[in-house]
């Protein structure tokens, strides 16, 4: 958001932060794990705008932390305990989801297919991988048990959004997928384009997506960030940690 930056609606990091934030509802219990700067910022943004009673649970173990600064590089940082009045362990968080009490889990995938399933495990054969990926962390447990799963990925190309996963690390209750180009919604088990971000053409989206998508001139546009959203984003994340996944 410096002087020579693009307009906010053409700034994919800003659009993603805003779009992710809007998916959270007031009063919901929301979790993100490791390596999740955009969900961290989106959750704090939602709490500051339309969802003040959202309960923010991070993998660091805080409940509604009010960190003095946002960690850059790790979303397990102990700064995310600041202001929290209680601590949860990671086991507590999985348990909460397992018994149906987690409203939203943010997850991601190195590959994402048209059913909203993810691969975080391997490119090629699982046992003899061409590329060994980091692993799905908690996703195989959370995706079937959290009420809603929101996927985000800062890269949108046919190697990420694939027709066929090399390995299904996790599948389950995916509700939305937010990318730099669009918001997908999952209906009847398939990802559909819910809205294109401003400036993205239907042809660009089709070319960037490895599975078939219905998109055309009538596809809704993701509303640009409001002035209130932009102000709140500056307030919760003055250091622009929400851009770190784009570096």
């Amino acid at each position, binding site marked *: 958001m410096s002087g020579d930056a693009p307009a906010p609606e053409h700034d994919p990091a800003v659009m993603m932060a805003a779009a992710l934030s809007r998916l959270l509802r007031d009063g919901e219990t929301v979790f993100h794990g*490791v*390596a999740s700067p955009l969900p961290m910022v989106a959750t704090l943004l939602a709490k500051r705008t339309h969802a003040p009673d959202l309960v923010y649970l991070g993998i660091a173990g805080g409940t509604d932390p009010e960190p003095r600064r946002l960690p850059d590089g790790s979303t*397990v940082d*102990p700064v995310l305990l600041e202001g929290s009045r209680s601590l949860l362990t990671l*086991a507590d968080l999985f348990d909460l989801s397992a018994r149906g009490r987690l409203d939203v889990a943010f997850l991601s995938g190195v590959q994402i297919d048209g059913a909203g399933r993810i691969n975080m495990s391997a490119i090629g054969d699982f*046992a003899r991988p061409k*590329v060994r990926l980091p*692993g*799905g962390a908690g996703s*195989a447990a959370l995706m079937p048990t959290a009420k809603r799963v929101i996927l985000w990925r800062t890269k949108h190309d046919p190697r990420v959004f694939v027709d066929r996963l090399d390995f299904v690390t996790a599948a389950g209750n995916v509700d939305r997928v937010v990318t730099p180009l669009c918001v997908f919604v999952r209906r009847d088990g398939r990802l559909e384009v819910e809205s294109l971000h401003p400036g993205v053409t239907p042809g660009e989206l089709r070319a960037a997506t490895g599975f078939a998508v219905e998109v055309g001139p009538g596809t809704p546009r993701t509303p640009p960030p409001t002035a209130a959203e932009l102000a709140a984003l500056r307030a919760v994340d003055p250091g622009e940690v929400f851009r770190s996944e784009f570096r």
Partner: protein
Amino acid sequence: MRDKRTDLAAAVAAVADGAVVALGGNTLHRGPCAAVHELVRQGKRGLEIVKTAGAYDVDLLCATGCAAAVSAGFVGFETAYGMAPGYRRAVESGAVEAREHACATVIAGLRAAIQGVPFMPVAGLTGSDLPAARGFRAVADPYGGGEVFVVPAIVPDVAFLHVQEADRFGNGRIAGTLFEDVLMAKAAKRVVLTAERIVDGAGFAEEPAAVAIPALLVDAVVEAPGGAWPLGCAGCYEPDAAYLAAYTRAAKDPAALAAFVAERVLGQVGAQAR
């Protein structure tokens, strides 16, 4: 309760090749790196590493040939430093087996060990290829509730845990997030605590609830200031960004990694300096 203070070399010498080794902490935070460096220095082989989400600690043990298997949900350096190059290369070459877990299944396996039962039911996993790939079985609920996946007990031969403060008996206090350290302390056959400082501990009796790791579970306690370095240790120091950037760069190439380890890992051991 007996005095369990010892030095790191002795505590690590008791680890057999092929042992199942649980490491406390999570990604860039409070991993027991002084102990990991000593495992590297002593040239352990065939280790199975257990952790929910590892980074430098797991990567280094893979890159240096100490690990033969990694049972973890995630191995990576988070957003700042990206994928784990040593782990990746070791798995792709076949030197290390990636026993991928959902983090929740590591926890379930540790819980089974803690509770002295052979397996632990775990919610979720439906639709995932992991159960088939890892041999996780489903069992029928004898009370009529359908099927549920169960994970076999994970019984570490040893857990290395780094804490901020301990007494000489091995009562350990952890500042900040506990991660899976308490579960590992209960599940492991042997527990080695490294501590930023060993204190008199008389004050511990005024606040017994502040002890996360009871001495009852601990076999050895080692004073190791900076013992999580180059990872962070809440209230003491942050992750060493320059070191981690240099490591992840070096670890992409075996020769560069060997030189890095010789100079910056083995050169540090003993001094435990930052």
